[in-house]
Structure formats: C-alpha cells, structure tokens
C-alpha cells in the first residue's frame, strides 16, 4: 500500500519521475516555431524532446523500480 512514509522514503526517485514528466509535457507543448531556434537535426519537433526523454531517462527508472522493489535493495 502506498503511504506517505513510502513516498517520503523514495522521495528522490519520485521527484526524478516528476522532473521527467515535466520535461515530457513541456516537450509536447513546445511551439514548433520555437523548436527551430535549436537548429538541431535531431530535435525538429517538440515531441522529439518528450520521446528522447523517455529513451534517456526511462531505463534508469525501470532499473530503480526493479532493483528496489524486486530485488529488495533498501526497502
């Protein structure tokens, strides 16, 4: 069961997920004209940032969840 104590225990990870979510949303809502200022070939649309944030940050989140909850590191 999710309690305040549980959330407080895993607070750094919760905030990390929160930061990722903020990046994800901000990427989706980024105005296309503003994205052009990056002059990047890799990021040409706002949602690309959301996508890359998943690719770069998701593996770590999965690793944390598996290691902490499945393999019992510092429950």
């Amino acid at each position, binding site marked *: 069961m999710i309690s305040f104590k549980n959330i407080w225990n895993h607070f750094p990870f919760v905030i990390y997920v929160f930061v990722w979510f903020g990046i994800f949303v*901000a990427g989706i809502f980024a105005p296309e004209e503003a994205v052009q*200022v990056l002059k990047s070939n890799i990021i040409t649309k706002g949602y690309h940032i959301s996508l890359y944030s998943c690719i770069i940050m998701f593996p770590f989140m999965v*690793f944390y969840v598996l290691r902490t909850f499945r393999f019992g590191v510092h429950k």
Partner: protein
Amino acid sequence: MLSPDFFKSSFEVTCFLLFIVCFLHSYSKYGFQKTFREFLAGFILSAGCENLGVLSGAYVYPGFHFYVFEIPLVNPLSWIALVYLVMEITNRLFPLKERRFLFYVIIVSLIDSTLALSVDLMMDPLATIYNWWIWVPVDQAYITEDVVNPYNFDLITHMTTPENPISMYFENVFSENRYPTRLFGIPLINFIAWFVFVFVFSIQFRWIESKISWSHFKKLTYLLLLILIEIPILGITLITPNI
C-alpha cells in the same frame, strides 16, 4: 494556459519548491548540519561558476524575478537540489561499501554525474526553446515575431553581459563562432561542464562525509575551502575551450 509564459513562470516557482522540499527531506533524514553543509557548498559552487559563465559573456539569464548577482536565484538552488536527489538515489541503489572505499566513491560519483546529465540533456533544449536562458548573442535569439513572443517573459532584465574584466578577458575567445559543437542544439561544453561539476562535487562531498572523526565545523571548513579553490579553476577551464 500552457503557453511559454506559463512555463517560464512555473519554472521559477517549481525550482524554488524543489529546493525547499529537498532541503526538508535532507533535514528530516540527516539533520541540520549535514544538510546545511551540502546545500551551502553546492549553492556556492554553482552560483560562483554560473556567475563566471555569465560574466565571461558565454550566456545570459534574462527575465527572472530574483537574482544572485548575474544569475537567477533559482539556478544554484535547483542545481544543488538536483544533485542532492541524484546522490540520494545512488546511495539507495548502491549502499556504501567499507572495502575499496575510493573505488566505490569514484563509481557512485560517476553514476551521480550520469544521472544529472540525463536530466540536463533534455532540460537544456527546453530551456532554449522557452528562453529560460539564452546561449546565443541576444540579437540572434529572436524568433519570428507575431508567431512566438521573442523572449516569452515580461520582465526585461539581465539581457546582456555587463562590462567587466572577465568578459574583456574572454572577448577574443568568443569573437568568432561561439561554441560551434552542439548536441540537441546546445553547446557540447555545457553538458561536459555539467558532468564535471556534479562529479567533482559528489566525490569531494562523499569523501568529506566519510571522515567520521571530523567535527561538523572541520568538515564545513574543508568543503568550503575546496569549493572556493575549485570555482576559478573549473570556471576558467570549462569556459575557455570554445569548441
């Protein structure tokens, strides 16, 4: 509601909140003295180096409400909050091993830096899109008028580098193409600097905290001395290569 204006304002407020919550979390877990030590040292390191960056003419932070000299107050506050978060995550995943302490500290500090870099890699393109900070000369930062508000904020402040000896020293470095090597549209040196800063801070903080016999005052003094030595060294080393 989800306009660039909204994101600009919410960024500043969220960074303040992030710092407060992280400080409270650290306080509840480690007590005041360790929390004070970590957050003060991180704040001074980040504020010192960022101010050097702005004074050198590398970038500007316009349109915020509260400043520490040339940088927004939320900048060092959120930096140390983020470093605290990644260090806590690493501590939980890789608990301290008494044996081979030096090797352990180097490895976990590398993981800290990698985690912080993963956030920065995505945060910096967003920062440029929403004009939280501006890497290019201000006259080139304009986006098509009438389509996107050029700067996405109302408060016109800190738009240009103030005249100062540091910017005069770096004038030749930035005279031609400023930071030509870019990743996701952001100067590559920015990501390198992030990695190095977090690594250096993490390794020295962990090393000092491992000195159980040292008093709080001694730990604080050593940490601050190290930070004060590092600021000019890291600042100059990472600003100068205009790669």
